[in-house]
Every structure is written in C-alpha cells, then in structure tokens.
C-alpha cells in the first residue's frame, strides 16, 4: 500500500542488519525512508538536514547515544521520535520521557509493533503542535495586555481620564493610525519614558 503523502522517516541503528530489517518493514508499511544513520552524530546531522517527520532511533549507538542525539536535535528543531531498544530499564525510560520522546519500544519489533507506535506518535505530535500554537497566542495576548494596562495608566494620569475613557482613546488611536493597540501602547510608554513622567501604578 502506497500512501501519497507518506511520512518521511529517519532510522538510526548501529547494527546494520537490524537497520535493514527495520527499513524493510517500514517501507512495507508505506512509509518513506529519507535517511539511515549508524551513529548518534550522523543521526543528528541527517535529521537537521533532511528534516524527517519522525525519527526511529536506538539508544545504544557509538559516538553519541540515542537519547543524547534526540536531545540535541530537539534543541534545534522539534522532531517526534520513537526509541527502539533492547534496554528495558526504568531509568532510561524515564529519561526518554523527560526528553519528550513519543514512544519506547523494546526489541524485537516488527511491523505490527511499529505501525501503531508511529500512528500514535504522530497524533500526539499534532496535539503537541496545537498546544504550542495556543501557548504562543496566549503569551502574546498577555504581553499586549501588559502594555495596554501601562499605557492606560499613563493616559489616566496625564490627561486626567477615567479608565474607560483612557481605553477608548487607545482604541481610537489604534484605528486612526492603523496600528495594533499593543504598538500604540508601547509608543505611549516610550514617549512617557522620554519625558520622564512617572505613570501611576
């Protein structure tokens, strides 16, 4: 079965025979293998270069181990990853969880294990991205609110206005100059700073 927008996968495993097996299984599931890595260093480089949709990686690899590689990749761009390893070890599983890994499979694995793991991982990742977006928006509006409050304070103080009136003034200015209210607020704050007028808290 060939999917059209098939997922791009990077597989990292130091034992080549196992890598070949994984690749074969993944291809049969309809995924695209964009890169193969046999050590942690290569995994990092190829991930950042080829930008796969998901990374399937072993822990036990030369140069840089799998968990460290995932950490470093995620520092630059967040790519969802699934660990496939022989180590069934609480500490490692916890470490992987802390790093934001989306799945942890114990060898031996075949298609029947990989398929659900990948699907769940991708679903989780989508949710993750959505939450990130929301977070970003929330943070932005919080920033705006802060500026607006400060600007209001300055106007109330300077022009002897009530709160509602100050707000209306801001909104009007925003409309008139076609700038965002946050921008106007920042300009007012800056102006007052230049003129060294203290705003009432």
């Amino acid at each position: 079965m060939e999917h059209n927008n098939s997922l791009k996968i990077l597989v990292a495993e130091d034992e080549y025979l196992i890598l070949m097996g994984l690749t074969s299984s993944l291809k049969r599931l309809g995924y695209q293998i964009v890169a193969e890595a046999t050590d942690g260093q290569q995994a990092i480089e190829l991930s950042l270069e080829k930008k796969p949709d998901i990374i399937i990686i072993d822990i036990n690899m030369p140069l840089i181990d799998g968990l460290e590689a995932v950490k470093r990749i995620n520092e630059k761009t967040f790519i969802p990853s699934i660990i496939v390893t022989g180590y069934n070890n609480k500490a490692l599983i916890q470490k992987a969880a802390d790093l934001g890994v989306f799945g942890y499979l114990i060898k031996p694995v075949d298609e029947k294990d990989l398929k659900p793991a990948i699907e769940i991982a991708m679903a989780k990742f989508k949710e993750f991205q959505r939450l990130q977006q929301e977070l970003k928006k929330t943070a932005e509006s919080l920033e705006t609110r802060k500026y607006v409050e400060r600007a209001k304070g300055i106007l109330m103080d300077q022009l002897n206005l009530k709160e509602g009136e100050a707000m209306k003034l801001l909104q009007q200015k925003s409309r008139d100059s076609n700038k965002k209210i946050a921008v106007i607020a920042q300009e007012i704050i800056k102006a007052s700073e230049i003129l060294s007028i203290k705003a009432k808290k």
Partner: protein
Amino acid sequence: MTNCLFKCENLSAYNFDGYILKNINFMLMPGEVHALVGERGVGKKTFVDVIAGFVKNIQGDIYYKGQNITSQLCSKGIEEIKVLLQKSCLIDNLSIAENLFLKNYPKKTIGMPLIDWQQIYLTTSHLLKELKIELDYRKKISELTNEEKKIVEIIKIYLQDPDIIVLHEPTENLGVKSIEKLYKIIEILRNKGRGIIYVTNQWEEALKISDRISILYKGQLVGTLSTTEAKKNPSKLLHKIYGWTNFRENNKNIGDEDAEVFEAVFKAAEFLSSDYELKDVLSMLARYATKVMNADGCMIDLIDEGTWSVIDTVTFKTKEDLEALLKKESIMLIVREGELFYATENDKNFISLFERQKGVKTIICSPILIRTQITGFIQVFYQDLYAYSDKEAAYLLTLAKQVGIAIEDTRLLGRSTLLQESHHRIKNNLQSIISLISLQKDFIQKDPNKSIDVVMNEIISYIKSIAAVHDLLSKDKLGRSIINVKEIISSIKDLYAINRNITINLEIDDIFISYNKATVVALIANELLNNCIKHAFKQCEDGIVNITCKKQPKHILLIVEDNGQGFPENFDLENLRTLGLSIVYATVINEFKGQIKIERTRGTRFVILLPEENLLLS
C-alpha cells in the same frame, strides 16, 4: 678572582695520541670542596697528574693564589698543593709513623742532628686519637690492609696541612666507617679555609661532599653546577656526564616532582573509584603518566593471556608522528623479565624490539599483572635519550598496579552487568533474526521461484551463525564480552564440517572484536563459505576453500577464495539476487565503511577490507 686559591686557564695536556685535556678552565676557592666528575677515560687521572707535576706536555696556565706556577709544577713541585693519588706512595718497610714524617722528620740536636722519634710518636698517636683511628703507629706498611694504607696516606697529607688537596678516587678501598672519617677530615680542612679538589667517577659521592661539581667529558670541562642544583635535578648532571645532548630543561625541583607524583597517584585513585569507562580511565592515566615521567607519550595495552595478542590499546602522545609499537615477542620477553624495562637507542638491539618505530629514543615499560596473570602492558616513550629517577621508576610501577586494578575492577563489574548485557544482546539477536526474515520476504517477492525449503534453510543457517557467536561468549572464562575472530571463523567452519570432499583451510590472526560486531562477522563468514560450497562446487568436485584474515596497519583483510566454478560474467555485486550476499555487501559498506570486491581467479575470490576503527573495540 683575587680570592681564588687555584686556577687553571685554558689548560691542555697532550701526548703522541693527541689531546687528553682541552682548554680546561677550572677554579678553586678557599674553604670549598670542588668535585670533578666524569666517566672512565675522560681525562681525570691526567688532570690529577698535571697538578702532581707528572705531565710535561701542557699548554695554558695554572695559578696558585694568583701566582703562575705552571712551569714550577713540573720542575720543583709546590709544597702547598698535595695530591692523593690512586696508587700508594708509602714505603712498605717503614712504619706508619716513619712514613708520615718521611720528609719532615722533627729534629733534635744533640751534638749532631738526630731524628726526634719521641716527637714523631707523640704527634702520630695524638693525631690518630684525634681522628679516632685505631692503628698502631709502629706497624709496618706491609702489614696493613689496603684500606688501612689508604687511611695512612690521607693522614699523611692532612699532617702536611697544604692549602690545596687533590683527592683522586679517595674512597677506593675504603669501607663505610673509613669513608666517614675521610669526610670528617675534609670537613675540618674546609673549615680551616683549605681548598679540596675531589676527583672521582662516582657522582653520587660528589653530591654528598662537594660544594660545586665540574664535569669532564672527553677531555673537556662541559659544565659546572652547584651541588644544591645538581641534587635537585640529578638527571641534568647525568646528562652532562654521559654526554647526552637535547637535555630538556625542566624547571622542576625534586620537591615539585614529589608533589606531582602524589597528585598523579591521587588522581588515579579517584578515577578508579569513579564511574568512568575503562577506556577513559586508561586515557587519563596515560596522560598523567606522560606528564609525571616527563615523557613524550604513553601507551597502555590490554593483553589476552591466552594468545599474547594485544586486545586494545590506549595511546597518549604529545606529538602525532611518534611511534613505538613493540613486537609481540618483545612484549613477551619484557613480561618474563618481570620488572621495569628500560631501553635506549644506545642499546644494540633497540630497533629490533619494535614492529614500528619513529622518532623514539628511549622507552620505559612495565607489565601489568593481576595476581600473576599478565593482563596488560604500559610503555612510556621519549624522543630524546632519558635517564629516569628512582621516584619515576617507583611511580611507573605503582601506576602499572593501578591500571591492573582498574582492569580487574572493570572485569568484575563486567561480569555482574554481563547478565544485563546478555538480555540486551539476546534481544538484539532476536531482532536480527526478525530482520533476516523480513528481508527474506522482500527477496521472495522479487524471486517467487525460490523454494520455501531453500529459504527456510538459509534462515536456519543464519540463526546457527548467531548462536555460534553466543556460544563463544558463554565459554569465555574471564567473563569478557569480546571475541576472537579466529574462533568465530573456526566455529562457522565447523557448521560445514560434514561436507563431502571440501577442504577448508584457515589462516586467521588473533583479532579481538566486540560482541555486536562479532555477530555480523559470523554472518559474513557464514554467507561467503555457504556461497562457495553451494555454488562453486556444484559439480561434486574436490574443492578447496581458503579463508584468510590478517591484521594490517589500519585494516583487517578478509579473503575467502575457492577453486571451483566462478561467478557468471555479468555478476553484479550491487544488485544481488541472494539475500545473504546483499547483506554482506550492505554491512561491509554501511556498518564497517569498508570495501568489498569479487575477483575471478581459479574460482572465485572475495576480498573484504575493513577499517580497523570500525571493527575493533569501540
């Protein structure tokens, strides 16, 4: 200059052979013991003979208290300068007392000048008592031992109270107590403001008694050191004595050296109890060893007791292009000797010790033992000639023991984690089998005519190879997880033991590799051997298969050849139709980053080149 008691200016002495002494500039101050040291044959005796006035052919000037006495030395002799020669100048038939006063008999005049024997005996016995020397002054010289004779000579000179005394090998023939007495006499003289020239080849003596040391080398004065300076850095002194150039001016005092050694030993203990990997610990120890031993590099080898081959090496070098790889036989020899091994370029067999050598002139080695078993080998090397100090020797031996502990520690740890590793290993092996089956599915799709039987048998064959490796691991008495390639290939060969008229010849070096690489090597060997047997000898002929695996400087070379029918003309390695060969190709290229080619000789020949860094212990 004005205070100078004795001075030689550009003194040279020659005979028909040539110059024995060349341009000697030597000074002696009052109240000073100035030693002159050097090896045998450098001209010390000649120097003494010159001062004693025995040498006529001299050039240059000699001054006593500012006065030029050069010509006077040979003709009249100088009263104020007395020389203790190596040879005895006593008269055997006379008594001690008579010998002591040979030239200065105290006289009394009773009518005719007579010798005042009473005076002589009195003075002598006083002297002997003062110096606590128990000798009967009436004894004849011929009755004395060599030691006693020497003492008499010394007393004789002392009695004459010269301004300058030259001693040539004064401790020869003397026992410990006598040497003490000699040094006491020298002290007395020094305190009186006399000057002493102490000529010897025993530099250790010079360090004990002198204020300054001058070094004679090949007839020339090559340096003068204060004794304090020489004591702190004896190798500097030795360098001048033996004429070694390129001396490294280490500005270290002995005090500093001690501190350094202690620090290195403490650090090593720290590493040993840390969580660091063995290889990292060894790296750090190698680095410390290089520093403390003032070396240019250090190598620590791990050795397999059974085969005496080097399993692994950790090297630290201060310069990239230095090399000092010892031959296996040399290592065995050194280990048998048991202790510290020291060799320099000056040794005749130096070059023959090495497999590969570049730029190294001194090596110091020690075996690393765990109980009585050889487990490793540590070697420090230098690009110059180097003499180590006692402390350095002790340090290296201690370090060897510490490395032994580190290795044993790792093994013990290894045995306990081996079980955990085994689980991991088994899971990886099972995954490999799934891979093989999964890949086999792909191949069947491409070639549906292949019979199920054949396919299943192939899989069984792979599983057997993996099992063979596992079996070797379980048999390792020391609980290590490293495997000898020789044994892997041997086990694979046994899988095909009952095969018709096919002879399999093995020529394999002892090469140690880690477990996960071992599995792949087993698979490769199995596949190639299988290939030969299946395809090359289809026609039931008598077949020969030769498998060679040799360790080369940076590679491992594996050759599998048969004398059967070769591959067809249009055989293409990259688009292989059998799973096995495609796995061989893929792993050689991708896992080992090596090369593989097929040659058509009398039959077929697979040549595989694997870079050693990807195969040996990681």
